């Protein structure tokens, strides 16, 4: 996975990356963690994160300090580092672990100390042994650090799409089945065994490590006001140089795609991952920040950008993503278990050119039916995807509905999706 050059000056995480701990401290300075951690230092770190306005880089974009404070209110919480990266088109977390693992581990040490954590568990998918090896090597390199509060443990977990959801991760790390739990009250800390858990994305922790050294004002110098700082993005699809880049938040989507080099005009971009939204035409100029994206029916997600080739069929690709989402349901909640395959089937009819107005109405009704009725936001992502397709591929829709699908409907533009067995289950 290559790192792409964005604007100079935005490379905070990706600059001077070091795998050896000595090189890391030479480049960034020592870990600002005192030998004895008292409540005063804990409050200092938490308010530094709060003033920096750091939000989670795992996809939900929740204010990080708020989550940390909630976990700190429980006794001996467990810090879970969420390196599951279940989003197939995202590589930024594993890239970060390869290039600057010590920033992530610094962040983990700092946050663990700030919340009074009893354990730190690094959660990595069990089919990414190289990432696990890199983290293990980095941890071995840090052994001489006397100040780290707890020695992080590595947990290799079952790699499913929903396994990265917070409550699913906490369950899997605790040795149970890795599926989301129903949490009606988000004001109660996440459960882990008998105690509480705090889940953070590796990139969020890396930013924390820099905020602790350089201060919240430095962090806010780049990026949008509502989500300050930089973020890592993974750009793939119909681009010349797919890869990971570090960009300022608030950069227009079109500019982000251009970093990877487009040979033809891009038809549309899937922003936010497989449960995200298509943006096409003028929407591509929207800044990559929550409020402008929400106006286009999109969310930031985990920095995933997939470009659609001009001759590909947006409806066919949407169907394929929807089938993936249906297959990745945890299988707990009726509306998701039944609704997502039904939505995928309707999309298949549209892509095939065998759908009429009635199918379209039924599809939209089903999207309304599934959204918000699961224990997690998985079905909401599918509904969002479909609604965005309606906007981005509205012109194509007319010809599809009149029985004349575009020639691109026979192409596979997004490449082979994981879980290819679900292609075979298409009727």
């Amino acid at each position, binding site marked *: 996975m290559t790192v792409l050059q964005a604007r100079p000056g935005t490379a905070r995480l990706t600059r001077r990356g070091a795998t050896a701990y000595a090189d890391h401290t030479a480049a960034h300075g020592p870990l600002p963690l005192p030998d004895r951690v008292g409540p005063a230092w804990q409050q200092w770190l938490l308010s530094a994160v709060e003033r920096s306005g750091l939000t989670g880089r795992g996809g939900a974009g929740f204010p990080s300090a708020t989550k940390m404070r909630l976990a700190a209110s429980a006794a001996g919480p467990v810090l879970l580092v969420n390196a599951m990266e279940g989003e197939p088109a995202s590589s930024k977390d594993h890239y970060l672990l390869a290039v600057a693992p010590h920033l992530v581990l610094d962040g983990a040490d700092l946050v663990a100390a700030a919340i009074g954590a009893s354990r730190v568990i690094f959660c990595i998918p*069990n089919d990414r042994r190289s990432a*696990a090896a890199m*983290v*293990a090597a980095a*941890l*071995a390199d840090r*052994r001489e650090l006397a100040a780290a509060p707890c*020695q*992080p*443990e*590595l*947990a*290799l*977990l*079952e790699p*499913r799409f*929903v396994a990265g959801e917070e409550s699913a991760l906490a369950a*899997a*790390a605790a*040795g149970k*089945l*890795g*599926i989301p739990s129903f949490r009606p009250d988000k004001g109660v800390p996440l459960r882990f065994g008998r105690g509480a858990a705090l889940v953070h994305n590796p990139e969020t922790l890396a930013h924390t490590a820099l905020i602790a050294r350089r201060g919240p004002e430095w962090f806010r110098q780049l990026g949008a006001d509502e989500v300050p700082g930089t973020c890592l993005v993974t750009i793939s699809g119909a681009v010349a140089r797919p890869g990971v880049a570090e960009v300022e938040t608030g950069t227009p989507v079109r500019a982000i795609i251009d970093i990877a080099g487009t040979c033809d005009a891009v038809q549309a971009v899937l922003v936010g991952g497989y449960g995200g939204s298509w943006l096409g035409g003028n929407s591509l100029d929207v800044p990559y920040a929550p409020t402008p994206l929400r106006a286009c029916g999109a969310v930031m997600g985990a920095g995933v950008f997939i470009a659609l080739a001009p001759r590909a069929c947006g409806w066919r690709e949407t169907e394929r993503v929807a089938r993936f989402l*249906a*297959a*990745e*349901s*945890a*299988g*707990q909640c009726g509306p998701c*278990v*039944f609704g997502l*395959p039904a939505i995928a089937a309707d999309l298949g009819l549209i892509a095939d050119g065998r759908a009429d107005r009635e199918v379209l109405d039924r599809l939209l009704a089903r999207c309304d039916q599934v959204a918000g009725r699961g224990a997690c936001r998985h079905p909401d992502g599918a509904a969002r995807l479909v609604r965005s397709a309606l906007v981005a591929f509205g012109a194509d829709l007319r010809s599809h509905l009149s029985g004349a699908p575009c020639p691109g409907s026979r192409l596979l533009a997004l490449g082979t999706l994981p879980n290819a067995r679900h292609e075979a289950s298409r009727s």
Partner: protein
Amino acid sequence: MSQIDLWYATRATGITALVLLTATVFLGILVAGRAPSSLPAFARADLHRRISALAVVFLAVHVLTSLLDSYVHIGWWSVVVPLVSGYHRAWLALGTVGLDLLLAVGISSVLRAHIPARAWRLLHWLAYLSWPSAVVHALGMGSDARFAWLQALIAVCAASVAGAALWRALVAGRARAARPETIIRARRSLRVGAAEGAGR
């Protein structure tokens, strides 16, 4: 109360309890298998509960009269401990076993809100062992088993429960299995433990 009355009471309440338990199990299978019916589904479930309560009442009287009946000695222990009675040891033991299992089903249902869902489910399935024990107990205890009318009654009970169970396994079970298979079967996560060589 004369001995004869007690004896008749034991037999009558026993047979009635068996019929009521049959109806309970039958309705329970229909509820779980979601059989279509003219009665609303919740009403059928409610009926299942009420009939089971009635069955327990008749069963309690049946046990009491059999203990009070001094013509044959059935000690108090043999109500819940099988094979301690001298009288028709094996057949009575089946009744005892059936009662023990029924107590497990009943108590777990009363305390349903306070026990884990899976535990309740497992205990409730003990009904599939309890009911046949009761049937064999009825056939083996002797007093009325030689009469054709009782044999016919038990045959009808057995046929209805067997039929319902078969329907549930083949028809209803197939329909539910046709749901999309998406439950994650998680292998237990592999813990690499603290980082290699950590010795703090």
